[in-house]
């Protein structure tokens, strides 16, 4: 476990009497302020998300000094960790007295395993990337940031049927809550459109996807492959399928980490369409600022998962600034967004937790290793504008 401290205020040595007096005064004011005590925000995410800590720390430091100090406690999650490991991780977080909330865990399985612990110990849990439908009803202390897998699966199915004109689709899905949830959404949408789902193939990270791909293609001969998995398995499957003649791939949001996906996918990379909850080429100022800061610090493009993790941490920080560090009040603050308070303005868009809230999904295509939006879809009809004047969904 890594521990990072977000710092506020200057640390420079005062020079001269006036400067010393000003420093003492500032110190007294800080000591008198209730919210000046450092509080902890738990962050349970795959190692690839570690850079977000540095980015958020930098962003917090750039804010005004009246912001409270935050200690971001990062706990690295390995995708596919058993449920008991996730439960133990959540219990460690819940045992921290100064914890105001947790951002995580990464996948649906981990988040679902951890959520009962947070609800039992009354710790606000912001789930940045997990899409399981079960998360929305698991308890009053769990707040998923992204639309559930039904909406994402429907988006993929619609895109596959309408935009790609698929006739025979094989669905590869990772055999956990994320994969099965996405599979159900995709097959449901394809059924409605009359597109044949010729094969459904479960797999996991410990398996042999190449064999599965070879057997499935020989058996079903699909023209589009839908993959509901994370980037590593998706890359291997896409490469194996490309080598056997499949040229079009649609993948879920979990795969969109180009720096890992592209090398594994090889020549298939530019044939991959991937769902994104956010893309770094958005033109709004907040997105640009985040992308710039991320690139400056990490020298890489930010991923949608990084943007969502950033929004989760900053949302907890803003809640603590608004209502203090009491967990109950933070929970109430989160519930009030979009009701009695305006939605929180995040990099990924306005954030609230009301039923039927606005949700924007994008379909990106990898072009020379970078995701480029091709369809901007707003299932709730809020009328979001596609970034950069790209093609808007026409179906």
């Amino acid at each position, binding site marked *: 476990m890594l521990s990072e401290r977000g710092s506020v205020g200057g640390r420079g040595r005062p020079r001269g009497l006036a400067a010393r007096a000003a420093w003492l005064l500032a110190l007294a004011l800080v000591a008198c302020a209730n919210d000046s005590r450092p509080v902890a925000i738990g962050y349970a995410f795959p190692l690839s998300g570690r850079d977000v800590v540095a980015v958020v720390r930098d962003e917090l430091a750039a804010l005004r000094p009246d912001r409270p100090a935050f200690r971001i406690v990062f706990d690295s999650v390995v995708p596919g960790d*058993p*449920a*008991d490991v996730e*439960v133990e991780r959540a219990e460690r977080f819940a045992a921290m007295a100064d914890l105001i909330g947790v951002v995580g865990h990464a996948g649906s*399985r981990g988040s*679902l*395993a951890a*959520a*009962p*612990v947070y*609800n*039992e110990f009354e710790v606000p849990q912001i789930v940045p990337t997990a899409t*399981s*439908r*079960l998360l929305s009803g*698991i*308890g009053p202390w769990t707040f998923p940031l992204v639309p559930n897998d039904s909406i994402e699966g429907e988006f993929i199915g619609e895109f596959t049927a309408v935009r790609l004109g698929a006739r025979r689709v094989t669905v590869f899905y990772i*055999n*956990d*809550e994320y994969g*099965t949830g996405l599979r*159900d959404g995709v097959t449901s949408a394809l059924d409605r459109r009359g597109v044949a789902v010729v094969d459904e*193939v*479960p*797999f*996991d990270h*410990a*398996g*042999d996807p190449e*064999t*599965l791909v*070879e*057997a*499935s293609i*020989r*058996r079903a001969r699909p023209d589009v492959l839908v993959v509901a998995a994370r980037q590593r398995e998706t890359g291997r499957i896409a490469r194996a399928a490309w080598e056997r003649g499949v040229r079009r791939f649609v993948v879920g949001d979990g795969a969109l980490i180009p720096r890992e996906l592209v090398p594994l996918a090889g020549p298939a990379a530019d044939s991959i369409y991937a769902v994104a909850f956010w893309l770094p080429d958005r033109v709004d100022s907040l997105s640009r600022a985040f992308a710039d800061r991320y690139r400056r610090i990490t020298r890489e493009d930010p991923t949608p998962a990084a943007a969502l993790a950033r929004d989760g941490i900053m949302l907890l920080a803003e809640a603590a600034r608004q209502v203090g560090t009491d967990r109950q009040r933070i929970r109430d603050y989160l519930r009030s967004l979009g009701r009695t308070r305006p939605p929180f303005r995040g990099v990924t868009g306005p954030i609230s937790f009301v039923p039927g809230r606005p949700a924007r999904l994008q379909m990106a295509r990898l072009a020379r290793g970078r995701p480029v939006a091709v369809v901007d879809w707003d299932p709730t009809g809020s009328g979001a504008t596609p970034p950069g004047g790209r093609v808007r969904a026409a179906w």
Partner: protein
Amino acid sequence: MNRQGWSWSGGGLRLRSVLLLLVYGAFGYMVVVFGLLAYRVGSAASELRRDSEPMLRLYGELTARAGALEQAVSTAKLLVEVGSGREVIASKIRAMVGRAEAPSPVPFARVPLRMRTELARVDELSSALQNRLVELVAAVELGRGDELPMRLAAIDSLHDELIVRLGEAQRIGLEDLVARERELDTTVQRATQDVLWWLAGGVLFVPVLVVVARRRIERPLRALEAGLGRVAEGELGVEIPVHRDDEIGRLARHFNQMTRVLRDRAEEQGRFVAAGELLAGVAHEVNNPLMAIVALSGNRATDPELAPELRAEMQQILRQGQRAGKLVAGLLRFVRSGDRHAGRVDVNRSLRDALDLVAYQFRVDEITLESRMEEDLPPIWGDALRLEQVCVNLLSNAIDALRQVRPPRRLLVATWAEAGRVMLRVADNGPGIPAAIAGRLFHPFVTSKGAQGTGLGLYISRQIVREMGGTLELESRPGQPASFLVSLPAAQREDLAGDGPAVEPDRPAARGLAGVRVLLVEDEEPLRRPMVKYLRRCGATVHEASDGLDALARLDALPVDVIVADLRMPRMDGVALHRALRQSHPALARRLLILSGDLSQLSAADGEALPRDRLLVKPITLEELGANVARVAATAG
């Protein structure tokens, strides 16, 4: 004090509040006891069901999935043993694996924490086993038979782990269920124990309720009942203790107040009775001299040799004597009106008799009487004396009211017949009835005369009128000069049938007494002398006796047709004489006339033995005496 709701009144809680408290307390007690039992046991059972249901459901689904996968694993082992037809077996395995879908959605969050991770691990192992089986099938489809042993070994390993985990989950689940069942048992035992304690407390509380009920309800009611019983037996000095200011306390206070009023009224009534007795005695003593005055003056007035001036004076003495006698008779009648006698009543006569009693006050108080009595009024059926009492009361009230205003003071009495009823109005130009008491004027003990009034006059008058089938109402509005209206039903033909014509005492016509032998028994010489003189002048042979014994002694030697005897005499009075005559001379006993100043002195038995038509009330005129003697003498044949 709020009389509608919970309230404290004076020194204590109101009885209604106490009863409500008792009822609500008992109801609350039942609710608490049974609510406690239902809540404790029900919530524990509900919690057990709520926690167990998803666990059992999930465990069942995972067990079913593991069973399907186990079947697929068993089938997969055939792949190594068979040399051909592996594709067919693979397709079967694919179908089996397809049936071994994960439960969706997986309700892990509702599973108890201890069981949750174990079942999640079972689910993960099932998914992994499912994936390996799918890969095995793929390898068969691709003709990679050499990989099958290695893949089957991995599948076996996962399967073994799944079985172990499933067993562990089952063990944990059973432990959990057993622990919950024990917890439920403990909860039921504790709830039962608590309920028993509550019931025991309730049993202890019952005597408290009994004590409260006895102290607050039974004892006061018993005291009240005893007090009422003593009052019913005539003991008016009863006072029952007032312990609280609740309803029963107020009832006791009213009871005490009522007995005080009754006691005061009884004392007052006693004084009235004593005054009546005194008045009767005085009247009797006054009647004899009056009778003598009337008889002497009557004798002298008929003397043809008397000078005209003296005759006029004698006649004046005679009229004044008759007037005084009439007043005394009225007074006696009024104070002796306790006996009820229903018969035909002339309303005008009753009103006139009442006016006679109060007439002297008209002159004293300068009251002008205006009388509008309709002649030939139909009679009513009732008690003439009690109707006269009503009239006296109304007239007395009017006189009292008129005394409060300056002259001219006018009193109106009127009678008339109207639609089968006889109406009687008494009105005055006094100050009227105050509005404060107008509505309750006919209630007992309500008076506008302050301490001088009993508050019973109008109440009793209305009762008397109602007993006669009539009404008594205040016609005037409050503050206006008072006017009372009595409405009485005229007597029906069937009422009058059988009732004698004697609306008033007989007025026998005078007739000659020649040849009639009369024995006059009177102890007072001044009274006896003029009667003897008058009867002899009428032609009768009159013998004299000074008392009953004297009369009986003379009867042996004298033939007598009629005996006229005074009621009150020394040695043997008139009643005793009558009794003796019935024994010795029954025929003469039927021709005995009794003279009395107060007939009420006759006992009931004597009154029945002596027919009313042979009772003569003093003072009577000599003509009346002669007429009665002639009437009785005629019966001697």
